[in-house]
């Protein structure tokens, strides 16, 4: 590196000299020429943009579809009270460019799904600071799917961070070399759900009363309106309904905060945990791009509720991963079982987390969740035993809104 600017003094010793823990292919110049994408301009995203800018990255893009909410201000430090309602990506980008001269941040206020593979292929590396499993699965499938073993330039590392309260993790996904997000889907903690019969008949917890209001009562009263967890009139209606229910059953503990928490599936979030995870992700990006040091292999978990504990380990690829493996699944099942029972079994499989699977055989649609006319037409199949619908060893194709690509399922009768 020939020019040492004021911006890089804190990193130049590690970039100008190689050392015992540097990787081969030491490439400090890459820092100033590469293009990085940050997905999410929230708790992790704000931190990431700051960290990358101060690490010497000059060309950063950021995508976020959200606008700023008052409950973001306890950690999303690039936003102020007066920014509430504005685009997170735009406000964050402007803030960074104002504070750090020479760093260009290009915001996109919209969904990741708006962009195609051509867009994603312009980046050297993609960092995700997302809070949704669906978005992560989508970007993972897209970026892993872009990799062509014949063309090394199509390999785009993904660095993924996540936090929950005093816990968090950062990880590196090198498509086809390490586990991908889909490989480790089982590690995701599922949002708590309660059985409908408990909610309807034997409520015990305040959460049961809130679910009664949101799952059973709301659709009856407002069939055409989706619940908006940020709309205080919605939350108030749910709260009052839940309170009535709680009173009827003598259940204590229904509050505004709990109602909003259950309805929005709120996860506690604080500045310090975000700082740790985002800085770890940026640190890995810095090392991967410059090769100035060995990097994380490939998963680091942090827990802060009892002392400070981290666990670093290589997450293994999954043979039959539906994204990076051979997406084939074998299932042994009695031929007497109905199609509906098969669907229920599929929904229970933790590695796929299907919501509303549709099934097709080679010849015909067995059951389609949408569009409505097709759903109606295929609904009759649900109660039929499998032996009437498919043959032993037949390969079925499963699609699902939760599944980034389709899945091949081989059914063997036992």
């Amino acid at each position, binding site marked *: 590196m020939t020019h040492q600017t*004021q*911006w*890089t*003094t*804190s*990193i130049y*010793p*590690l970039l*100008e*000299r190689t*050392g*015992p*823990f540097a990787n081969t292919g030491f490439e400090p110049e890459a820092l100033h020429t590469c293009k990085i994408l940050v997905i999410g301009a929230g708790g992790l995203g704000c*931190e990431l943009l700051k960290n990358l800018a*101060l*690490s010497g990255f000059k060309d950063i893009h950021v995508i976020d579809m959200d606008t700023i909410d*008052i*409950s973001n*201000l*306890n*950690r999303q430090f690039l936003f102020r009270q007066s920014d509430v309602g504005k685009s997170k990506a735009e406000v964050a980008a402007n803030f960074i460019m104002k*504070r750090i001269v020479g760093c260009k941040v290009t915001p996109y206020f919209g969904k990741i799904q708006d962009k195609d593979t051509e867009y994603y292929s312009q980046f050297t590396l993609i960092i995700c600071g997302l809070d949704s499993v669906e978005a992560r699965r989508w970007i993972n499938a897209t970026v892993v799917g872009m990799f062509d073993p014949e063309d090394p330039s199509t390999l785009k590392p993904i660095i993924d961070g996540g936090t929950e*309260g*005093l816990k968090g993790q*950062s990880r590196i996904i090198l498509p086809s070399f390490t586990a991908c997000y889909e490989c480790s889907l089982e590690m995701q903690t599922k949002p708590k759900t309660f059985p409908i019969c408990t909610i309807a008949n*034997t409520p*015990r917890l305040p959460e049961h009363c809130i679910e009664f209001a949101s799952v059973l009562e709301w659709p009856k009263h407002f069939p055409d309106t989706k619940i908006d967890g940020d709309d205080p009139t919605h*939350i108030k209606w749910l709260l009052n309904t839940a309170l009535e229910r709680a009173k009827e*059953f003598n259940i204590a503990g229904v509050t*505004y*905060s709990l109602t909003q928490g259950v309805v929005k599936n*709120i996860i*506690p*979030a*604080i*500045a*310090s945990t*975000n*700082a*740790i*995870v985002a*800085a*770890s992700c*940026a*640190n*890995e990006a*810095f090392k991967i791009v410059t090769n100035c040091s*060995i*990097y*994380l*292999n490939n998963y680091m978990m942090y827990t*802060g*509720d*009892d*002392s*400070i*504990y*981290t*666990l*670093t380990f290589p997450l293994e690829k999954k043979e039959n991963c539906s994204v990076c493996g051979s997406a084939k699944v074998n299932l042994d099942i009695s031929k007497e079982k109905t199609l509906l029972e098969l669907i229920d079994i599929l929904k229970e499989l933790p590695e796929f987390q299907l919501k509303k699977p549709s099934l097709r055989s080679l010849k015909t649609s067995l059951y389609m969740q949408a569009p409505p006319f097709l759903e109606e037409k295929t609904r009759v199949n649900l109660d039929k035993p499998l032996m009437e619908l498919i043959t032993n060893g037949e390969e079925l194709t499963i699609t699902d809104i939760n599944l980034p690509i389709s899945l091949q399922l081989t059914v063997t009768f036992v």
Partner: protein
Amino acid sequence: MQQPNTKTQRYDRQLRLWHNHGQQALENSKVLLINGSATGTEILKNLVLPGIQSFTVLDGNKVANADLGNNFFLTRESVGKSRSKEVTDLLRELNNDVEGNHLEEDPTNLINNDLNFFKKFTIVVASQLIEVELLKLSAFLWENNIPLIVVRTYGFIGYLRIAVPEHTVVETHPEQIVDLRLDSPFKELSTFANSFDFSTMTSFELSHVPYVVLLLRSLGEFRQQYGHLPSSTNEKNEFKNLIKQKMSGVTSETENFDEALSSAFRTYSPTSNTQSILQDEKISNLNLKSTNFWILAKALKSFIENEGNGFLPVAGTLPDMKSDTTSYVELQTIYKNKAKQDVASVNNYLLEILNNLGKPKDSIPLEEVERFCKNANFLRVIKYRSLNDEYLNASTTLGFTTNDILHLTVLKKKKFFYKGKLLEDLNSNVVFFVLIRAVDSFWEKYRRYPGVHNSEVDADIPLLKRCTQNLLQGWGVNPGLIQDDHIHCMVRAGACEMHNMAAIQGGIVAQEIIKILTGQYIPLDNSFIFNGMNSTSTTFRI
């Protein structure tokens, strides 16, 4: 019920972790930062956002160009101006409710001439402070019971040390508090359990009997037959059979019976932690300076020795379980009422103690007594080691041996799975604790850090090696323990403070400070190294 106010909305995501009383504790805290370095401002950022009362930046430096490269809370216009003032102004923008102060003065002067200045803070963070002054300051803070956080960011290495004579935690936030008193049911609980007539119940009713009732009844039957609780394997099987017998009338699902079988031998007696806390001499030596924790501990002890019959107060929480609504709510009320009764008894002892101490009755509110009783089995006391003891008695009490160093690294951790050629060497992050000390003694000797300029790197490696060996010899440790690669790695870093490492440290240190200030969750005891190369860390007590 009212919609929450702006402040509650702003802090919603953190209140779910430490609640209003934790927030109140934060809002009463005054934090001092010594040196407005990148690491220091990152720490403060993560404390200003959740809303401490005030922060003060003590720094005698002017902003240099180099500061702009790693410190987010400076701008181009800051260069040449007071670093304490510049970072304070930009940090203050993060939260209008937090007061920010700056003091442009060399911390060394203040430590040497006006130690009392440090008395007005709740907690002190020392970033990049050198040994002599650090020890002087730490001795003073130790005497005044003010927690000191020492933090260093050096290349890819982060170091953190906490020192305060004692830290007590009531709410450690265990996953779940399950206190069912199955092996020693109180009267109201037994009466309730005996009110069920299984013989007249339908299958649906049977499948909705809370498992607590199933267990209490089966235990009662077992005791009648054997005169004691099930202990041998045979007896335990016999007991499980008693549970299963009740299942015969159930034709549908048996979730509640499954719950009963899996919790069959759940007992609840004081943990060793709580027992040793109750033996602490602080309880017998209560005085006006005693903290609420120890006063409450004494009241708790009196309760256990009297009404409690050797047991802790009932926690009063009931986990969710398969049940019909009425039985569940009734059971919940029984536990809650018993907990209330126990709290009242503890509170009576407390009032007596407060009276004897000459303290006002209301100096410990009932809410605090309730929290103490509910968490009685999860209390935590950490007695730290002072920094002065660590530095000055290294050879005797540091107890560092070759084996210890190797031992410490595997504490709590799985072996790392790296396959790379140099990575075996990285297993021991404690090596970097030694090397942080070594670069400091390098500084003491040469008044500069090793490898700051390219031209010095080669020559500084053997110099740092000598410093390291001297240090280890002084501790009575095999000087050959530290590998050349690690020494080279420190020289290569040239004392740089990379932003990412500063930000990781900023997060980790702020997290520990929040735990200390709120008195919730368990903070580090006492040292921590983060290795930013392979992203591993080591926690150890030195």
